[in-house]
C-alpha cells in the first residue's frame, strides 16, 4: 500500500465518512421521505447551527480548553439578540449578541487561565449562570418572538438556493480549517494543547492561547445562538439545553482529542453531519427522542475509546496486519 493510502486508511475522518455513508444508505432504503431534497436541506440547515458551535469547540479543544457553557451561551446570545431586536433593531441586536458571547469567552478564559480553576467545573458553573441570565432577559420560558428582519434573514433565507446557515457554517468551517492547519496561531493553539510545558519553553504564551481558545468557543456559540434564534423566529431561554453533549460527542467522534493537541475541523464537520443525520433518520423512523439521548452517551464513550485505541496504534490497518500475520504463520505457537 502506498504511503498516502496508508495514511488515509488510518485517518479517523475516513471511518466517519464510511459511517455517515452507511447511515445515509440505511435510512434512504428504509424511509421514502429521508432521501428527498427538502429533508436534506432541513437536515443540513439544522446541522449548520450546531456545526458552527462545533467549529468553536474544535478550535478551543486544540488548545485543551474544555468549555461546557456553550449551550448556555447559545441560549443567552439568542435571547439577547431577540430582546435587542424588538427594541433597537436587527443589526444592533446581532452585534449586541456577539458582544455578549465575547464577554462570556473572556470571563471563562480569565477564570480558567488566571485562577487555574478546573475548566470542566468552571464552565459548568458559568453554564448555570448563563442559562439563568437567559431566563432573566427573556422574562418567561415562552421566549421573545423575532419579527422579520436581519436575524430572521440569517436564519431562514437562502443565498443562491442554499440556506444562509449552511453558507455560514461552510465559511466558518473553512476559516477554522485554515486557522488550525495553515497559520502560526493555529499551530500555537495545538502546541499549547499538546504539551503546555514544551509550548512555554518554545516561547508560546500558554495562558494567552487558552484565553483565545475560550473566546473562539464562546464566539462561535454566540453565532450559533443568533442562527438558532433566526431559524426558530424567537429567542428561547431553554434553547440548546443538553446539546453541549451532542456537540462534544460529534467533535470527539471526528477525531479531536478532549485533552488537547489534536484537532480536526473536517472530522468535526463529518461528526456533526453524522449525529444530525442519525437524529433526523431516527425522528423519521419515529424512534423515541429519548433513544437519541441514550445513543449520544454510547457514541461519546465509543468515540473516546476508539480515539484512544488509535493513539495506541491499534487501528483497522493494525488489525488487518495482525490478522494477515496470523494467517501467514498459523503454526508459530504450535505445541
Amino acid at each position: 500500500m502506498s504511503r498516502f493510502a496508508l495514511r488515509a486508511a488510518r485517518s479517523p475522518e475516513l471511518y466517519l465518512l464510511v459511517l455517515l455513508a452507511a447511515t445515509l444508505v440505511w435510512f434512504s432504503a428504509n424511509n421514502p421521505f429521508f432521501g428527498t431534497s427538502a429533508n436534506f436541506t432541513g437536515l443540513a440547515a439544522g446541522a449548520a447551527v450546531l456545526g458552527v458551535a462545533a467549529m468553536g469547540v474544535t478550535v478551543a479543544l486544540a488548545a485543551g480548553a474544555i468549555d461546557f457553557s456553550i449551550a448556555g451561551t447559545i441560549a443567552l446570545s439568542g435571547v439577547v439578540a431577540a430582546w435587542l431586536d424588538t427594541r433597537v433593531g436587527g443589526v444592533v441586536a446581532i452585534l449586541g449578541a456577539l458582544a455578549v458571547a465575547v464577554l462570556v469567552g473572556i470571563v471563562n478564559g480569565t477564570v480558567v487561565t488566571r485562577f487555574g480553576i478546573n475548566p470542566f467545573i468552571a464552565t459548568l458553573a458559568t453554564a448555570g449562570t448563563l442559562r439563568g441570565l437567559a431566563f432573566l432577559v427573556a422574562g418567561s420560558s415562552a421566549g421573545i418572538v423575532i419579527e422579520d428582519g436581519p436575524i430572521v434573514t440569517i436564519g431562514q433565507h437562502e443565498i443562491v438556493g442554499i440556506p444562509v446557515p449552511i453558507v455560514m457554517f461552510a465559511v466558518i468551517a473553512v476559516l477554522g480549517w485554515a486557522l488550525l492547519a495553515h497559520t502560526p496561531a493555529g499551530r500555537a493553539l495545538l502546541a499549547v494543547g499538546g504539551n503546555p510545558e514544551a509550548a512555554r519553553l518554545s516561547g508560546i504564551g500558554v495562558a494567552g492561547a487558552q484565553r483565545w481558545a475560550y473566546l473562539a468557543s464562546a464566539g462561535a456559540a454566540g453565532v450559533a445562538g443568533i442562527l438558532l434564534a433566526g431559524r426558530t423566529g424567537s429567542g428561547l431561554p431553554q434553547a440548546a439545553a443538553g446539546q453541549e453533549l451532542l456537540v462534544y460527542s460529534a467533535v470527539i467522534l471526528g477525531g479531536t482529542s478532549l485533552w488537547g493537541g489534536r484537532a480536526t475541523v473536517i472530522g468535526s464537520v463529518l461528526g456533526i453531519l453524522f449525529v444530525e443525520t442519525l437524529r433526523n433518520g431516527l425522528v423519521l423512523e419515529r424512534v423515541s427522542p429519548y433513544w437519541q439521548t441514550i445513543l449520544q452517551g454510547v457514541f461519546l464513550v465509543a468515540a473516546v475509546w476508539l480515539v484512544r485505541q488509535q493513539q495506541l496504534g491499534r487501528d483497522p490497518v493494525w488489525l488487518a496486519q495482525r490478522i494477515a500475520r496470523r494467517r501467514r504463520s498459523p503454526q508459530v505457537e504450535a505445541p
Partner: protein
Amino acid sequence: MTAEPSTPIGRPEPAGGGGLALIGRLAAAPLARLAAAYLLLAAVFAIAADHFLTTDNFLNIGRATAVFGIAALGLTVALIAGALDVSFGAVMSVCGILAAERIAAGDGAAAAVAVALAVGVGLGLVNGLLTAVLRLDALIVTLGTFSIFGGWAFLHTNGAPTPASDDAFARIGRGETLGIPTPVVIMIAIALVLAVVLRWTGFGQRCYLVGDNPRAATLVGIRAAWVRAAALAISGLTAAIAGVVMVANAGVANAGEGERQLLNAIAAVVIGGTALAGGSGLIVGTLLGIAVLGTIDNGLNLLGVSSTWQDVLKGVIVVFALVLDRIRRRDA
C-alpha cells in the same frame, strides 16, 4: 466534626509538634477558614433576614440540602479516588423511578428501597467497570452514562410522573427521627460511615493513594482500577439513597429530576476542599460545602430573591468560591 480539620488531606500526619503547633495548623487549615467563612455568611443572613436564626429555619436548610447532600457524600469518595462521577444525577432519577414503581406495584417500602439501592450500586459498578476495562477517564465514561441512564429514565417512563404514595415510604422523605427530619439523619449517618471508612479502613487509605498517585499505588500492588470501581459503586449507592429520599419527599418520581442536583452536589464537594484531581478531601469538608450552599439558597429565599436570580447567583458564587480557594492555596 471538630478535630478533623487539622489534617487537610485526610491522611494521618506524622506525629510531632506540641499544642502550639496544633493551633497554628488549625488556623492554617482550609476547613477552619471555610467554617469561619460560613459563620460570616450566616451572620450576614441573620442580620438581613428576620427568620434566619431560628431552629425551624435550620431544620429547613437541612431538609432542603439532604437530597443533593447525600449524593455529594458518595461523590466525595469517588473524587478522592480520582474518579469524577457526573452520572449520579441520572442514577438518582433511575433509582427514584424504580422505587416509585415498586410502591405503585404494592411491594411495600422495604422492597422499593432495596431495589433502588441494588440498582444504584449496579449502575455505579457499570461506571467502574467501563472505566477499568476501557481504560478511560471516569469523567468521560460518566458523561456517557449520564446520557444513557438519564435517557433510559425518560424512555422507561415516557416522561410521565410515577406516583409513590405509601405512608412508610413517605416517612423516609418527610418524617422525623428524634425531632430531626429523617433525610438529615440519613445524611449524617452516611457521613459518619464514609468518614470512618475513609480514615480508618485500608480501602479508605487506598482511595487516597490511588487518587493521589495511581502509578505509585500500582507499584505497591494496589489495583487502582478496582479501587476506583469500588469508589464509583459507593457514589452509585449514595445517589440511589438520594434518589429514594427525593422521591419519598415529593411523593412522585420524575425523569430528569435528579440531574438538576448536578451542580449543587459537585459544588458542595469542591467548595468543601476535595481536589478535582483526586487524592485529597474530607467528608467534613463536603458537609461544610453542603451547609454553605444550603444556607445561600435559604438566605436568598428569605430575602425574596427569585429562583431565576438564584440560578444566576449560584454559578457566580461557586466560581467565586473556587477562585478564593485557589488564591488561598497559592498563598499557602
